[in-house]
């Protein structure tokens, strides 16, 4: 069996909802069935074959080639298998996913890993705003799984995040960890303003003091050696990420906040 390959034929005029193209939803379908499936694009629906050149037959290994930032909802609610994307992806990549993995060579638009519950998303590029966040009006962002971003993330990374891990090798935008309920966001680069805004619980792990400093909503708890950090770094070793290569540390400066709320979140800065 060879990977089911979907090569985008042309530049898109409208956004396309790719949520039907997951290993779960394509299970039992052959290439003819897939070619006739309808995808929502703007106000119309289009057959898959009109948008993509289709080849291969392994629906557990799906590849999007020549992908575009207008392909939304790739990997929607997938529970197993792999999706590889060559190019960019649109909004809501991996939304609601519970398992499997998504690997993308380009950038993603907003709400990557929105409300995901498990599995792994690896972005070999930059991610837009609201990585791992909850949809607007919803209270729980990602509740499990891992998102790795080799580049930068936009604003509101981990907004309302409840569990899981977001690992950012580059920089994180403003309001990183905003309204976070639990989970871990680790950043190797810099972070924008308003770090941990309205954060309830959870951990923001930084390898250096942010350029804009720590906001007044976080109280300095002093320097500490924390036993869980070596375990966490050990768990990074199996990842295909810079986080697997960095030398683990357990000595950190701990800041607790956002004291404007319950103040049980923490920012840990390597010292």
């Amino acid at each position: 069996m060879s990977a089911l390959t979907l090569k985008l034929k042309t530049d898109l005029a409208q956004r396309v909802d790719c949520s039907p193209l997951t290993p779960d939803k394509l299970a039992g379908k052959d290439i003819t069935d897939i070619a006739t499936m309808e995808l929502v694009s703007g106000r119309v629906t289009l057959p898959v074959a009109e948008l993509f050149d289709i080849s291969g037959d392994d629906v557990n290994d799906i590849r999007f080639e020549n992908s575009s930032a207008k392909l939304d909802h790739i990997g929607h609610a997938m529970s197993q298998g792999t999706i590889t994307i060559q190019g960019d992806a649109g909004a809501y990549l991996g939304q609601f996913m519970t398992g499997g993995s998504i690997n993308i060579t380009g950038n993603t638009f907003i709400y990557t890993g929105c409300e995901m519950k498990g599995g792994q998303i690896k972005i070999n590029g930059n991610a837009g705003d609201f990585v791992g966040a909850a949809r607007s009006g919803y209270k729980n962002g990602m509740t499990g799984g891992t998102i790795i971003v080799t580049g930068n993330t936009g604003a509101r990374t981990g907004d309302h995040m409840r569990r899981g891990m977001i690992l950012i090798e580059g920089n994180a935008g403003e309001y990183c960890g905003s309204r976070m309920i639990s989970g871990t966001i680790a950043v190797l680069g810099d972070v924008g303003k308003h770090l941990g805004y309205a954060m309830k619980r959870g951990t923001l792990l930084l390898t250096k003091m942010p350029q804009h400093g720590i906001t007044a909503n976080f109280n300095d708890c002093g320097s500490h050696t924390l036993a869980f950090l070596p375990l966490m770094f050990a768990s990074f070793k199996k990842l295909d990420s810079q986080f697997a290569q960095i030398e683990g540390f357990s000595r950190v400066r701990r800041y607790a906040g956002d004291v404007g709320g319950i103040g049980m979140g923490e920012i840990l800065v390597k010292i």
Partner: protein
Amino acid sequence: MIINGVSIDKTFAEAFPMKGTRIIITAQNLEWAMHSATAFTGFATSVIACGCEAAIERTLDPSETPDGRPGVACLIFAMGGKGLAKQVETRAGQCVLTSPTSALFSGIEGDDGNEIALGKNLRFFGDGYQISKMIDGKRYWRIPVMDGEFLTQENTGVVSSVGGGNFLILAESQPQALAACEAAVKAMKQLPNIIMPFPGGVVRSGSKVGSKYKALNASTNDAFCPTLKGQTKSELSPEVESVMEIVIDGLSKEDIDKAMRVGIQAACELGAENGIRRISAGNYGGKLGPFHFHLQEIMA
């Protein structure tokens, strides 16, 4: 069967099913891990009165522990899962949580994912300041304490185990019996998955099932008490003056088989010339449990 002049009785040791788990205690150095592990496994020689049987299995190199610090592996067994959970929780709370620099981890996967709480309820000691962390699919609790943070895994696995494997060493004198026991315990301590829960791994007060007193369900094994040779239906020949027992709990029957073989072999190496006369076993006529360890088969 005779090994090095030591007679191996044609009998079997009788053991019973238990529930067991392995926990790993780490600390800043091995000394402090041992302090905690010693306390955790204290007063745990027999389920008859202790509620569990526990002992240190072995020390762990930093490369073998979850947090890369020196550690100690302990095995703890009880008659059922609920009893085990209670013992693990109270001991962890009083002996590991309290011990400076300690951290507590599960050292075993449960049968069919069966688990009991390890630090799950200890977290409430954190009074709301405790922090949960999911790492590699396992939940840990970070509990703020006066020396920093106590890190504990939430649960530990429970496995069906075997308790009460045993053999008796019959010698011409007390020092000779003890020397043989020491040699046996030393050899058996090299093996994984087993513990000898009595002090130093040796018990001198082996028991039989039942008693003349209604309140007791176990009493002295008079058939093997040398001072009663003329008073009871003794199992002892005139030259035997001391009998000591080694009790073994293990994660499986095979682990106990292996341990008994290694232990009996070590005792027999001292041989008849050092006063070791017989190896026997606690056989209760099938009243105690379903696991039977036939000495001659084990040593064949």
